[in-house]
Structure formats: C-alpha cells, structure tokens
C-alpha cells in the first residue's frame, strides 16, 4: 500500500512540476508549487506510517507552516509586480539576464 501512496505522491509532484514549467500566470505557477509541496507532504505522512515514527508527520506540519508563509510572501510579491507592470505573467519579469 505504501508504494501506492508514494507513486501517487511522485505523480502529483511531477504534474506540479510540469505545471510550474508550462504555465505563465504567476498565480497558477504558485498553485503548482503548492501542489508539489502537498505531494511531498503525502510522502512524508506515508513514510511516517511505514516507519512507525511521528517525525514524518512533524515535518509535514512544518512544511505546511512554511508553505503558508511562502504563499503569503509570494502572493504579496505578485501583487506588487502586478501593480507596477499590470501583468502576472512570469515571463514578463525577465530583466535579470545575460
């Protein structure tokens, strides 16, 4: 059973990754990142049960906290960028190059 959870986790992680890569709307990209984090959490929880240790759950808990903080800051940044550039596309913020 554990294997199934882990494969599901991997699958969700990969889908999230593809989403980050193909979507341009910064908010959607963010959602995909959240998806990847959730996939990780699933793996942690699964391993916690597999190994009979609560550590996995504790870490998943911390991941959630950090993810929440990250979302707050990330969305604030998006809003700021949107305010100045009128765009939420990640491709538009491409000045840091060459």
């Amino acid at each position, binding site marked *: *059973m*554990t*294997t*199934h*959870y*882990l*494969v*599901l986790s*991997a*699958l*969700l*992680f*990969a*889908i*999230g*990754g*593809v*989403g980050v*890569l*193909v*979507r*341009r*709307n910064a*908010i*959607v990209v963010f*959602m*995909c990142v959240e*998806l990847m984090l*959730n996939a990780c*959490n*699933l793996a942690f*929880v*699964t391993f*916690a*049960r*597999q190994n*009979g240790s*609560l550590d996995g*759950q*504790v870490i*998943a808990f*911390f991941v*959630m906290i*950090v*993810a*929440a903080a*990250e979302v*707050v*800051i990330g*969305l*604030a940044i*998006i809003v*700021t960028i*949107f*305010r*100045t*550039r*009128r765009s*939420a596309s990640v*491709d538009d913020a491409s000045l840091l190059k060459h």
Partner: protein
Amino acid sequence: MGESITFWVLAVVSVTAALGLVFSRRAVYSALMLGVVMISLAVLYAVQDAPFLAVVQIIVYTGAVMMLFLFVLMLVGVDSSDSLVETIKGQRFWAIVAGIGFAVLLGLGIGNVLLTAPKGLAGVTAAGNVPSLAEQIFTRHVFAFEVTSALLITAALGAMVLAHRERTESKPTQKQLSRARFLAFGKTGKNPAPLPGPGTYARHNSIDMPALLPDGAVSPLSVNRIIARHEAIEGTIDPEIARILQEEALAEQQAADTRPTKPLDDELGDTEPLADTEPLVEEDAK
C-alpha cells in the same frame, strides 16, 4: 480493503484534479482544482493515521491558503486567462518530457523497492495522535517550532510591507476633490454629481435594475457595465440602455483609435523608467 477503495478513488480524483489544475485556461478553475486535490489529500492523511494533519490541511490549505489565492485572483482580475500558446521555444516539450521522465523514473524506483508491511503508528501514538504530535513538537522540535513562528510573523510583516503603497502626496481633501470635479465638468462636461444609484423598487433591490430618470426613462449611468454586458448576451437588456451602451462603446473605440497607445507604466504614474539598460560598470577601453 476500505483503505484501498478510498485510495483508488481519491488517487483518481486527485490526479485528475491536478491535471485540471495544470491545463485549465482560467486561473479560477485552477484554484478550484487545487482545492479538490487538497481535500483529497486531507482524506488520505486521515486514512494514514494522521488526523491532525488532515484537519490542518483542510483548515490551513483549503481554508486560508486557497482563500488567499482567490483574493489575489480577484485583485489581479478574475477573468484574466492565460493564452496557452507557448512563447519559449521547446519549453513545453521538454517540460512534459522531463515531467514524464521524472514521474516514471521515480515511480519505477519506488515500485521496485521491496517494502515490509507498514509498522503503523499505534506504538508511538498511544496517547492519541494529537497529544503525541504535540509532545514531539514541543519537546524535540521546539526550537524549529519557535523559528517557524518567527518566520510566520516575518512573513506577515513582509506581506504588509510589500503590499503597502507609500503615499507620495497628501490625501486630497473634500474641497480639492470637489474643485477638481467641477473643473472637469467645465472642461469636458463630465457630470460632477455622483452616479445615480440603481433603481429601487418594491420587488427589486438589486444592482441590475436601472434607476429611472424623472421622465421615466432609464439612466444608463446607474447601470453596472458588467451586468449590462451579461444582460446584453442573455438578451434581457433594456433596449434604451443597449443603445447607449453601443454609443459609448463606439466613442471609446474612436478614442482608442485616435489616442496614441501609451505604455501601461505611464498611466500608472510610475513614470521613472527602469535604469536597467545602463551598463552597471563603466567599461574601460579594451
């Protein structure tokens, strides 16, 4: 057996929702799909002896985080939809290849690992899941916990700083605003009075009802443009309003044609150009 059924149902649901999240054009749909995935995962947590996390998942993620996403979406524009045309050459192809490759490799790797039966958490959660977790968090992981709390506060402050817009000039007074309104009236004939409210009748008290002018005609100014557009599509719009709207649209079109297109930055007033084209270092003679 019960777990198996739950897993398979939720696995299908969550994967489908995840794919929907990635491939739906509209950001709102994506957000909803994400909500579905999260709830599915919450259930899976619960199934895996993690009731506390399941609850937290629902409260924090589907509650707080998703709300935040939706708020931002509102702020940015609900109907802003991505064009799905890829602009970076090869990006989508390689992304999908990498994604599939990654999933396959990882899946194969995990699938090939011979695992013993899960030990289960019964041994470590004798006092119940929540008290055991609490014990862990407040003893072994107390330092990390404190640090995360600091992180959260910092994040909250950071968000405020980022979202806050510094006022560069003092807030206009009532007098100034009124003066400006009448000056605009003198110059362009723009109505200085407030817009009329929506029509209020015994049966209706909604914003889609136009206000009536003293002569009984409807006042187009009182009509919300978005609602009017919906009604125009549905065909339930008042013909008078439809005509006025059309005239307005025409005028706007003309104005747009004659006005030189200006970059967005200028309209926003942040007129200072970014000094990014200047070389940062004075290059010496080669």
